[in-house]
């Protein structure tokens, strides 16, 4: 006898991600992921100037602004075969890294840690014991008894007020929560500290991009930052030095707190290394180009099929011909017209809305496929694709994390465990540590290049009279992002964005194959089906983000999310 559970956060006036699961004998037997809002926003770009596209695409999503700006300028540059000056590459890379570090820190602490950390256990903790435990794990200087006690007092004050505030709706006391009061306290202390460090990362984005959340410094062909080491109004040594110091602080937090916390939490929930694998086809594109022509990259890309790490196929460039030719979007189960899967350059976005029907159409998200197969994207894909290709930096931090988990859990944690819910969290922390090291490297590359006397930041784009096609990619915090553009006579003829959450949240395709969210939920055990914490753990591990939300404030307090058990 199965039951259907619907988790549907009706966010403001437009919908977001909705998850439906069927539960049999306290385990998920079937799953559907759907987005309840039309994603036709690209249509507003048709007929516009390709040089302006990034300003519009930056508004696709308020959380991932910079990534859509960057993919857009790269798409136009790819279509024009326009190189980007080395300075512009480094400045862009620093912005992308700083944004990703901010995003990963917020994701772990503010968006998903409370799936594992029980706030109501915190008042029981002994701050001195917690501080002592922390000393064995990390050299972080802000784990003192006093700092932990201050954090505990915040929770006590909230708990004793009778109003849980931000903690109102957690699954506190759920049987799937298992950390000791001391570990709960440590994690919560870092939840509060994380707010400071994610802000420092955003400050770097703002200093280089001139504004957040919408950067202003991009141009097709480069960036608009004036570099002049002696000018107060330009990017000068003083500003570069401030950026370096901010990055150093963020990197220290990642290495001494974020990475350590993820490993410690993982080590205490080892069964979650066996839950939540789902689609084990992985896709990542190369990113962080090292030169003007983008011949070399600091992050490798490629494809792994069916979890076969040894069979990895690498991509040479961020717009590798194999990648360009292999992506299609299927609309069998999405609310769009169309019979056959289409390549994004030929993509259509003609709505055909029906009611939610799990056997037919049930989502506004299309089903992107690579050579006809569903693919998982995100930090886990990036780490596995790098690990499989013996990428030294990936190995360094992946082996460090696995070693840490092994030491705490007293098990032998191997890369095979990464195909899981916890694998996705661990991979995000590993990627953050890699990006932190690369931030420092690209800062140095920029400073060295300027020191050589190269102040170039922009190459002027020239549009041919005929038709050209391009793809701009970025390995964003949530995975492979690609913008596909067709330009005719200097105007946009077609534009499609295939975003990371489209890959991961995709509905079934014409063959009936589940998308990654759906597949990852199958067989998940549920201790209390009417409090589906375990479903949220796996969905949150992907860092879902349904882009292009309408943000109208609704003061009426009508229930804005629900868990419905049928």
């Amino acid at each position, binding site marked *: 006898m199965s039951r259907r559970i619907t988790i549907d*956060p009706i*966010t*403001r*006036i437009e919908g*977001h*991600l909705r998850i439906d699961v069927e539960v049999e004998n306290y385990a998920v037997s079937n799953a559907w992921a759907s987005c309840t809002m039309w994603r036709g*926003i690209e*249509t*507003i770009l048709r*007929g516009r*100037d390709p040089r*302006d596209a990034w*300003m*519009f695409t930056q*508004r*696709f*999503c*308020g*959380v991932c602004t910079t990534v859509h700006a960057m993919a857009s300028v790269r798409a136009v540059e790819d279509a024009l075969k326009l190189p980007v000056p080395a300075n512009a590459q480094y400045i862009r890379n620093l912005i992308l890294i700083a944004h990703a570090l*901010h995003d990963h820190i*917020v*994701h772990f602490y*503010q*968006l998903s840690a409370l799936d594992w950390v029980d706030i109501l256990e915190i008042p029981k903790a002994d701050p001195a014991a917690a501080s002592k435990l922390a000393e064995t794990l990390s050299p972080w200087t802000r784990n003192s008894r006093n700092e932990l006690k201050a954090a505990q007092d*915040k929770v006590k004050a*909230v708990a004793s007020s009778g109003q849980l*505030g*931000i903690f*109102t*709706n957690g699954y506190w006391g759920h049987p799937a929560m298992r950390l000791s009061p001391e570990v709960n306290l440590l994690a919560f202390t870092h939840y*509060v500290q994380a*707010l400071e460090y*994610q*802000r420092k990362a*955003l400050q770097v984005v703002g200093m280089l991009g001139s*504004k957040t*959340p919408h950067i*202003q410094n991009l141009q097709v062909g480069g960036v*608009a930052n004036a570099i002049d080491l002696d000018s107060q109004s330009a990017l000068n040594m003083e500003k570069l030095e401030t950026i370096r110091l901010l990055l150093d602080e963020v990197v220290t937090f990642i290495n001494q707190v974020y990475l350590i916390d993820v490993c410690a939490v993982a080590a205490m929930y080892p069964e979650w290394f066996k839950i939540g694998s789902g689609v084990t086809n992985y896709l990542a594109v190369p990113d962080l180009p090292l030169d003007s022509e983008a011949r070399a990259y600091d992050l490798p890309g490629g494809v792994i099929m069916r979890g076969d790490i040894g069979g990895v196929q690498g991509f040479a460039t961020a717009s590798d011909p194999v990648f360009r030719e292999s992506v299609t979007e299927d609309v069998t189960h999405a609310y769009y017209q169309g019979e056959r899967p289409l390549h994004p350059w030929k993509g259509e976005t003609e709505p055909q809305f029906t009611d939610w029907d799990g056997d037919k159409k049930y989502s506004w998200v299309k089903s992107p496929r690579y050579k006809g197969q569903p693919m998982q994207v995100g930090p886990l894909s990036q780490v596995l694709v790098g690990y499989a290709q013996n990428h030294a930096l990936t190995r360094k931090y992946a082996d460090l994390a696995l070693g840490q988990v092994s030491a705490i859990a007293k098990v032998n944690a191997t890369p095979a465990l990464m195909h899981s819910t916890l694998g996705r969290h661990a991979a995000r922390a590993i990627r953050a540590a890699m990006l932190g090291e690369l931030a420092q490297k690209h800062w140095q590359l920029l400073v060295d290049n300027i020191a050589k006397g190269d102040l170039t930041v922009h190459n002027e784009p020239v549009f041919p009279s005929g038709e050209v096609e391009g793809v701009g990619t970025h390995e964003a915090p949530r995975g492979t992002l690609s913008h596909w553009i067709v330009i005719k006579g200097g105007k946009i003829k077609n534009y499609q964005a295939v975003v990371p959450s489209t890959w991961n949240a995709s509905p079934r395709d014409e063959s009936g194959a589940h998308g990654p969210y759906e597949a990852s939920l199958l067989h998940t055990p549920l201790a209390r089906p009417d409090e589906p914490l375990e479903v*949220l753990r796996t*969905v*949150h591990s992907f*860092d*879902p*983000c*349904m882009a*292009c*939300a*309408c*943000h*109208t*404030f*609704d*003061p*009426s*307090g009508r229930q*804005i*999310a*629900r*868990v419905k058990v049928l």
Partner: protein
Amino acid sequence: MKKITIGGIGSVLLGDDGVGPYVVGMLEAGYSFDESVMVADLGTPGLDLVAHLSGIDALILIDSVSNNAPPGTVTLYRKEDILRHGPAPVRMDPHSPALSESLLIAELAGEGPQDILLIGITGDQYEVGAGLSEAARQAAARAIAEVLAELDRLKIPYLKLRAEPFSAWWKPMAEALPVTNRSER
């Protein structure tokens, strides 16, 4: 000097959802403020809104609202109105009710603003690429008056400029001129 942020919230690509950023554009074009006043188009933030709330004394937000009033109605909300119903029962992604949660998180960290005013404008339509409705456009001027009244109440000085009228870069295609080479780039 009190630190204050004036932020427009909403998506400029979705009709009247862009009214917050539109009001911010009008403020930037028509007024000059002290360094202690930050005027920002905050777009459609998630919890990254917290980063904009720390270290400030007062916050003025302009956002479209859904409240059963006629389109173009301007309604003022204070902190207790915004937080009355608490955070969302289930948070699925980083966009989920960002405003109330961000305020609660900033408060928890002890760094949120004390004075909060949300100037809500009831929207008429939220069509992709449609631009502002006439109702929202007219309400924008009344929202500016509310921003200035709040600044007066907080004793924050500002200067009215003799400026060109604000022209939004995200206009629908039919009204749009190329936006490249805009001066603010």
